[in-house]
């Protein structure tokens, strides 16, 4: 009689495919996963506590450091929440610039997803290609605000500066090249049989379950639930644009991959439309020198590349927020990890983690 027993394996916190410092404690029966319990907090900086001792404007750079591969979206979500609280209207040109930047950032973020998924599954070329194209977007951001990753470009009442003259031709070139780049990735990855078999049918999450467990963003839409805040509660000027929300059918890793690839196409189309319609004019509204929102509390959320990014701000009428809470999509999406991984092979945990695309900067706020 052969005696078998389960054993525990620590994946992370220092593991390349956990995308940061996530520790997953795996309970294994041979190669089968019985439990995959995520432990976070290794990157916890107490940003919510820090916010209480910073002025409203001083907090903008902290938002850059939440989901640090899509900082434009974080800036926007935070600034829009404060604007909602204070009743500030943003000039039209700034609204267009915000959309262009955020959609480009969505592409950049999904390119990182694509690259890291590929390298996690052993296809290191995917990483190189993804980062190559992302570099073009970072150069554009560099032109606009002088930073490649931590932008603080979107401010209360508008954006920090208008784009320089060389920005538009460069963006035109990027948007012209992008369909060919995407086609290349589809050829390289989507058409790759190994990748297909690794992802197809792995880590299925039903639409019903995805809703219950609080998934948002591409991970929810891959399960066939059409919840995209840009559509259901259009913020900024998203209702001016014509775009579709890609949906998956079964909610497996493959769908989560395809949905993000399609989203990049949509984002490029939104950026194109915004560039064509963008008016001339001011990029900054007249806002008070000292930001003092009236007493009250407000919740506002936007669609970030990883899901619903929400800010809940309580103001006591002073220059600093009384309480600031960030609803981080990566954090809430991680809840689904354990139940999705159960019964899978240990190698598939990496695929599930990569397609959930949680980013630790955001998980450990």
């Amino acid at each position, binding site marked *: 009689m052969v005696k078998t027993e389960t054993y525990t394996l620590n994946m992370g916190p220092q593991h390349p495919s956990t995308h940061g410092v996530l520790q997953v404690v795996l309970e294994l029966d041979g190669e089968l996963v019985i439990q995959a319990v995520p432990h976070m*907090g290794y990157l916890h900086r107490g940003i919510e506590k820090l916010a209480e001792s910073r002025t409203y404007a001083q907090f903008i750079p902290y938002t850059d450091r939440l989901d640090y591969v899509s900082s434009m979206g974080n800036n926007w979500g935070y600034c829009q929440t404060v604007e909602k609280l204070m009743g500030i209207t943003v000039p039209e040109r700034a609204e267009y610039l915000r959309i262009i930047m955020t959609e480009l950032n969505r592409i950049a973020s999904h390119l990182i997803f694509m690259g890291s998924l590929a390298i996690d599954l052993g296809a290191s070329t995917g990483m190189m290609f993804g980062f190559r194209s992302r570099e073009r977007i970072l150069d554009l951001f560099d032109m606009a605000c002088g930073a490649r990753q931590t932008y603080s470009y979107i401010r209360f009442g508008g954006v920090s500066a208008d784009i320089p003259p060389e920005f538009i031709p460069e963006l035109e070139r990027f948007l012209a090249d992008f369909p060919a780049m995407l086609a290349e990735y589809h050829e390289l990855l989507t058409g790759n049989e190994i990748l297909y078999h690794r992802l197809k049918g792995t880590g299925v999450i039903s639409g019903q379950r995805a809703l219950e467990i*609080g998934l948002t963003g591409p991970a929810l839409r891959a399960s066939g639930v059409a919840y995209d805040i840009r559509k259901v509660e259009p913020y900024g000027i998203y209702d001016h644009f014509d775009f579709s929300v890609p949906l998956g059918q079964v909610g497996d890793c493959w769908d989560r991959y395809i949905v993000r690839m399609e989203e990049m196409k949509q984002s490029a189309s939104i950026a194109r439309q915004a560039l064509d319609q963008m008016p001339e004019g001011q990029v900054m509204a007249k806002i008070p020198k000292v930001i003092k929102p009236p007493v*009250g509390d407000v919740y506002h959320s936007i669609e970030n590349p990883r899901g619903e990014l*929400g800010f*809940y701000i309580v103001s006591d009428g002073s220059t600093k927020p009384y309480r600031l*809470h960030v609803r981080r999509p990566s954090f809430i999406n991680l*809840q689904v990890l354990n139940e999705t991984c159960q019964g899978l092979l240990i190698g598939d945990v990496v695929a599930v983690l990569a397609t959930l695309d949680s980013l630790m900067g955001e998980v*450990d706020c």
Partner: protein
Amino acid sequence: MSNLDINRVLAELQAQYGEEVKLLGEGAQAALIAPTTYIVEILGLLKTKESYQFNMLRNLTAVDYLEYMEFVYHLYSLPLRQAITVKTRCGMEDAEVPSVTALWPSANFQEREIYDLLGVKFIGHPDLRRILMPEEFTEHPLRKTYKAHNTGEKTW
């Protein structure tokens, strides 16, 4: 945006639970407030009733107001595309509220986070452990009585 008439919801809830259910704020800041004794029942009603169908718990957080702790539930109805904010309050001494994980499993991590950072017990939570701070940590950093300070480990 939401086309929900919050006053109608308030009237319906008041008919059932009495005057203890109140309306706070107006416009984008309007929120219902209910005592902790009924909160799970009221949230359950908002989730299941045909005319509400708040099937998503978007956000759950708590605020320390020194005299009391306030819990904020931001609900969203995907089928009817409407949003509502519900609040409840509890005292600071032995702060505890019923867990809503049975209604929305998505509350699991969010309640653990509130427990960790604000020191509130959620009754009926399946796995109430610290989530961000280390297990041996004894305080709750988001409480107003906790002063953020330099840990002073290195002084050069």
